[in-house]
């Protein structure tokens, strides 16, 4: 573990060596109890095993890593200084340019996501991963309403995801509801849970709100684990029906007197059809979410969310009903989470409380914050990264969550505002006529 501290000046080589030596020393102290020593089971009792070779290797790695890090930081700083001296572009220009790049990237991403299942139509693994990414994108966009726009820190978002998933699972297995009937009902249920939870607690300050929502998430999970008659307990609910394509099932053989998806279109049956359909389904749901949220931002309620995030006291002074505004953000975020939950249940065909732990909430929140709060494209980028990092880590599977945690810390330290911290201005005034002298500052950035 090397301390990343950005010194104010570039270091001389001796200073760098001393600095790396110091970090390696700290690494040695930290490593002794966890890496250098370990307890193993020896005939029913614990015995101590030493691994000083491993410890030395780790310390050497820390030393080398720290040296390299310092060197590259100093290098980067020099280059940036040189560039700043040459370039005359203002910060606003650069931000505007970055925004254009992000917009172009957005269209490319959209094109790529539409084309993906066509290119990889026989690669089950890729389509599966892409579907997972899209679920997280949708969850991220939902939570973005609560955290990014309204500025309410929600650590229990997964509770609404669970409400959606369990509503669909129960409605379909107990009452035979289809996916499309259950979708709005489950979303509404999740939204009412949001209001139910939100009403008493939204008066709380940020951090208290965070801990109460965390508690609520845990309560829902504990209830799902223990209330066996209702939720199936730790075993969860299995054989949840899959969504159909306008009434056409994705089955090998057509039902009596009807068609399956394959027979209707005269295709040969393939298990990939359903996966690709599910992929496009979540893509459409995610895009609808995006359109919905983007529209909301331009409505009075969306403006009110962002105003509330910036300054609650000022909003109160303007006579806004802050409770209702917060509630609407909470309910809409919850509803979107509920939709994602319905899709999740329909895609997996099996759900259990295991899928709705605090780690899941943390991952969704990490997606929003790493992406840059309030940035829709940032969510896409962060969701892709956070799903793919563990996937690349699959070759050394036990390290994936370790990598995940380390990546969260490193990205935050590197870019505290998130990967795409520049946001599309909420209000953009039209450029004034040339003749008017006061043309400067016509853009109201957030």
């Amino acid at each position, binding site marked *: *573990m090397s*301390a990343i*501290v*950005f010194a104010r000046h570039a270091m001389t080589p001796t200073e760098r060596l001393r600095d790396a030596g110091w970090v390696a020393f*700290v690494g040695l*102290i*930290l490593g*002794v*109890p*966890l890496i250098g*020593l*370990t*307890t*193993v089971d020896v005939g029913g*009792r*614990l*015995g*101590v095993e030493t691994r000083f070779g491993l410890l030395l290797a780790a310390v050497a790695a820390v030393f080398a890593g720290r040296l390299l890090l310092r060197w590259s930081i100093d290098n980067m700083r020099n280059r940036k200084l040189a560039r700043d001296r040459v370039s005359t572009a203002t910060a606003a220009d650069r931000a505007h340019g970055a925004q254009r790049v992000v917009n172009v990237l957005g269209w490319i991403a959209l094109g790529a996501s539409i084309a993906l299942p066509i290119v990889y139509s026989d690669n089950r693994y890729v389509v599966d991963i892409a579907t997972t990414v899209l679920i997280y994108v949708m969850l991220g966009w939902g939570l973005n309403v609560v*955290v990014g726009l309204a500025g309410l*820190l929600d650590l229990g978002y997964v509770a609404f995801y669970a409400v959606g998933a369990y509503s669909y699972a129960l409605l379909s297995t107990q009452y035979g509801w289809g996916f499309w009937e259950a979708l709005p009902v489950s979303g509404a249920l999740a939204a009412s849970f949001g209001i139910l939870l939100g009403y*008493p*607690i939204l*008066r*709380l*300050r*940020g*951090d*208290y709100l*965070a*801990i*109460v929502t965390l*508690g*609520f998430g*845990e*309560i829902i999970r*504990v*209830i799902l*684990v*223990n209330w066996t008659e209702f939720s199936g307990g730790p075993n969860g609910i299995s054989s949840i029906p899959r969504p159909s394509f306008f009434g056409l099932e994705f089955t090998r053989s057509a039902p009596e007197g009807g068609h399956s998806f394959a027979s209707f279109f005269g295709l040969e049956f393939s298990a990939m059809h359903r996966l690709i359909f599910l992929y496009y389904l979540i893509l459409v749901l995610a895009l609808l979410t995006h359109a919905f949220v983007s529209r909301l931002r331009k409505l009075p309620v969306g403006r009110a969310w962002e105003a509330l995030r910036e300054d609650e006291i*000022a909003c109160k002074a303007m006579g806004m009903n802050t409770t209702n505004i917060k509630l609407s953000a909470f309910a809409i975020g919850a509803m979107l989470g509920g939709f994602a939950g319905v899709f999740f249940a329909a895609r997996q065909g099996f759900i259990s409380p295991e899928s709705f732990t*605090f*780690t899941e909430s*943390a991952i969704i*929140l*990490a997606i929003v914050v*790493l992406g840059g*709060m309030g940035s829709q494209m940032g969510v896409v980028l962060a969701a892709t990264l956070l799903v793919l990092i563990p996937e690349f880590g699959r070759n050394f599977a036990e*390290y994936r*969550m*370790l990598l*995940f*945690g*380390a*990546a*969260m*810390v490193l990205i*935050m*330290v590197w870019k*505290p*505002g998130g990967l795409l911290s520049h946001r599309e201005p909420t209000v953009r005034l039209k450029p004034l006529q040339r003749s008017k002298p006061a043309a400067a500052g016509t853009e109201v950035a957030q």
Partner: protein
Amino acid sequence: MAYALQQLINGLTLGAMYGLIAIGYTMVYGIIGMINFAHGDIFMVSAFIAVTAFTILAAADVTSIPLALTFVLIVSIFFTSAYGWAVERTAYRPLRGSTRLAPLISAIGMSIFLQNSVQLTQGARVKPIPPVLEGGVVLWDAPGFTVQIGWTQMLIIVTTVVLMIAFTWMITQTPFGRQQRACEQDRTMASLLGVNVDRTISLTFMLGAALAAVAGVMVTVYYGVVDFFIGFLAGIKAFTAAVLGGIGSLPGAMLGGLLIGLIESFWAAYLWAEYKDVATFSILCLVLMLRPSGLLGRPEVEKV
């Protein structure tokens, strides 16, 4: 009646441990205004260090219990404070002065990182240690039920009381305590008046980690088993305790810890044991709704 008394003793023991962890949360929150999410995992690391230290002692045939406990406490406090220092230095200090959410995310990442590094280096299996302190004092031999306070329970409660007294003295009487309180009130002003803010914050993290280490050793002795996941629930409950008592207030953290411990053991004894976590959180919600500044906290006035 006898049964209730026994639950009272168990609850106090549990509460003392929550209180020790909660102090770490409350101090850090007081001084830099962030939820140190990795604190529960620091506590877990300390429990693992304690297991290793106990095993070394057992291999070296040390039989004197006071000697063993002192050794394990010192070793665990030393290494755990190092962890507390390193976590602050790597994950939080670079983010000081940025948005409120950034350090929180970094803390959650740190928590995941610590959990998984312990799982990788020490194994995912539960680590049992042989009982260190057995037996206790029978307080009341009521018909049908014997009320007993174990030596371990006594040790935990006494240590906690001693630590609380020492801690209160340190915060209110020593130069470090003054600097710490100064940083809590106004960091910029404190630094202008010659307080080394970075050092004070580092020391605060180390002290919080040291108290968590004491709790870690106690948990190891009390339950005799440790695994890499104990930090999560203990951390959340200790944070609940800190909020319940009024975050930023040291006596509040202790009181909150005791209350949470008592609520949990009585709830588990008389109502449904499987819903004891629900009870903790529901009571937290109620307190926050009715008295958002906690039991002993000062009401915070928001200024523009």
